[in-house]
């Protein structure tokens, strides 16, 4: 997904422009230059990149290692002592963490929906439904709002005596306890997440459409292909890279950016039914004072994301080859 961006390749030294003039200059001068001009120039790239490298190394890569290491040590009285896999077995036996993992499974099952919705809408917009610019602006807006704001708004909308139930009541449907019923709450939260983020996928799809080969679409049109055929035989193969990108970014979104929603909408409840790993990690670290256990959960989350990410890319790649 990031193939074309590469650092400058060797063989075009930055200082090349000035080299011609110094060819016949006595050694003394180039020695002096080594301590001032030339050497400073050679160091320049490192000076420019050093602050970024320090920040990323110290505050992103190093903590990853620390965390994995930390997950094999104990909490509380056994702070710092190696405990082997004890944290991981505890996680496995914790019904709350199991619920969190089950919810991750649910998210992965719902992932195709979360990708298909913006994909279909983008197709319609691309086929120039009247007012497409308006739709693009409207659909994209919730995607830039904070999950906290979105969650706060939906707290009001999904309240038992709130607007949604009032609308349902008007057509004769009994009110639903959207956030208070364990079997429903997780679907409410995921639904809100999809409402809030489909605009992101939509914009990515639209930018993919703008790279589609227009002559292919015209040819399909001349041949009298139906909308379904066009989607299946022209758009999907032509956008395989975009679809892959949306799959991966949507999955990352579902697995790692729902904290704000959970925090304000359900706090993991009712009865722990809306826990996700990220919320579990936060509770164990902050509320339960079990940082080592939280680290183990972090490591599991990381593995899940690696696994799902590679599997998806592999699957999509194979599907792309068959076309």
């Amino acid at each position, binding site marked *: 997904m990031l193939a074309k961006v590469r650092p400058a390749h060797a063989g075009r030294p930055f200082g090349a422009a000035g080299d011609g003039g110094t060819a016949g200059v006595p050694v003394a001068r180039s020695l002096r230059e080594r301590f001032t001009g030339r050497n400073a120039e050679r160091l320049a790239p490192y000076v420019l*990149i050093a602050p*970024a490298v320090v920040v990323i190394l110290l505050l992103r890569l190093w*903590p990853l290692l620390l965390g994995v290491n930390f997950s094999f040590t104990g909490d509380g009285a056994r702070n710092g002592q190696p405990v082997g896999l004890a944290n991981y077995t505890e996680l496995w036996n914790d019904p709350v963490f199991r619920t969190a993992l089950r919810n991750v499974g649910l998210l992965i099952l719902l992932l195709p929906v979360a990708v298909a919705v913006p994909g279909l809408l983008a197709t319609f917009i691309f086929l120039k439904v009247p007012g497409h610019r308006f739709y693009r602006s409207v659909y994209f807006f919730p995607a*830039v709002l904070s999950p906290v704001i979105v969650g706060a*708004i939906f707290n009001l909308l999904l309240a038992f005596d709130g607007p949604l139930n009032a609308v349902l009541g008007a057509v004769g449907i009994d009110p639903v306890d959207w956030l208070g019923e364990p079997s429903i709450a997780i679907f409410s939260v995921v639904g809100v997440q999809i409402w809030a983020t489909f605009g992101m996928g939509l914009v990515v799809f639209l930018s993919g459409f703008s790279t589609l080969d227009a002559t292919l679409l015209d040819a399909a049109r001349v041949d009298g292909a139906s*909308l379904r055929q066009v989607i299946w035989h022209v758009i999907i193969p032509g956008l395989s890279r975009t679809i892959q990108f949306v799959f991966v970014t949507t999955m990352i979104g579902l697995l790692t950016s729902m904290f704000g929603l959970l925090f304000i909408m359900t706090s993991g409840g009712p009865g722990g039914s809306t826990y996700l790993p990220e919320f579990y990690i936060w509770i164990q670290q902050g509320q339960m004072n079990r940082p080592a256990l939280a680290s183990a959960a972090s490591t599991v989350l990381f593995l899940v994301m690696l696994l799902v990410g590679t599997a998806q890319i592999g699957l999509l790649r194979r599907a792309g080859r068959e076309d």
Partner: protein
Amino acid sequence: MRTARFGRWALAVPMMVLALATIYPLVFTANVALKSQRDYVLDRFALTRSLQWGNLAEAWSNAGMARYFVNSLIVVGGAVALLLLLGSMAGFALSQLTFRGSRVLFLGCLAALLIPFQVIMVPLTRTMADAQVIDTYPGLILAYVAQFLPFTIYLMTSYYSGISKEIVDAARIDGNSPYGVYRRIMLPLGKAALLSVGVLDALFCWNDVLIALLMMPSSEHRTLMVGVTSLRGQYSNDIPTFAAGVLIAALPVLAVYVFFQRQIADGVTAGSTKG
């Protein structure tokens, strides 16, 4: 494919309904925020009959949103300035300069991009506590810089690699040092990308709640989003004031969206089609 006019409208109707479903929650909140407590209890749907600006004032001053707002501005401003500086310097070096290890550094940056915050939050919080920067502005700013720097570098590198090396070479012949090239050529030429990535970084920081909760625990250091979450308990019986607080937190984002929608879209789609 060549949808007849009728077919087009058949699509347009559900899309209009969906657009309404997207806008309605926001309109509902704005409407509630301007209602009196009594009106809200009597009828929460009807358009407000009087404009209760007092709700906004209450949320702004008594609920502390003003303070949280300033906190957010300080942190977002600091973080975005640092992100753009470090990101453009690194992006320039990685895309235009030749040096040993540039490839490894670029790959390391991409690897860092793929590490979610949740995975490193426990050790990071410890490190920050050890460095005694928990609950300080620099601490939260640093945490945001670390979180969004890989993305910023990636975007700046990809933008700068589209700039012809001849421009850089010409500037070198004119006697500019690499730093001079960065300052006189790359910064001005990178304006569009800096604006796009800067707006996105600002939104990321402004919208975050998890990092802020961990790095700025005390109540006087709350950022606006953390403030919204605390408002909920505080005004659980006064929904109009709660809605007013939510509105205050959402309005700056709406303003940014209206002015910079294009830049935001450019940023989030970077990497999705090319390459």
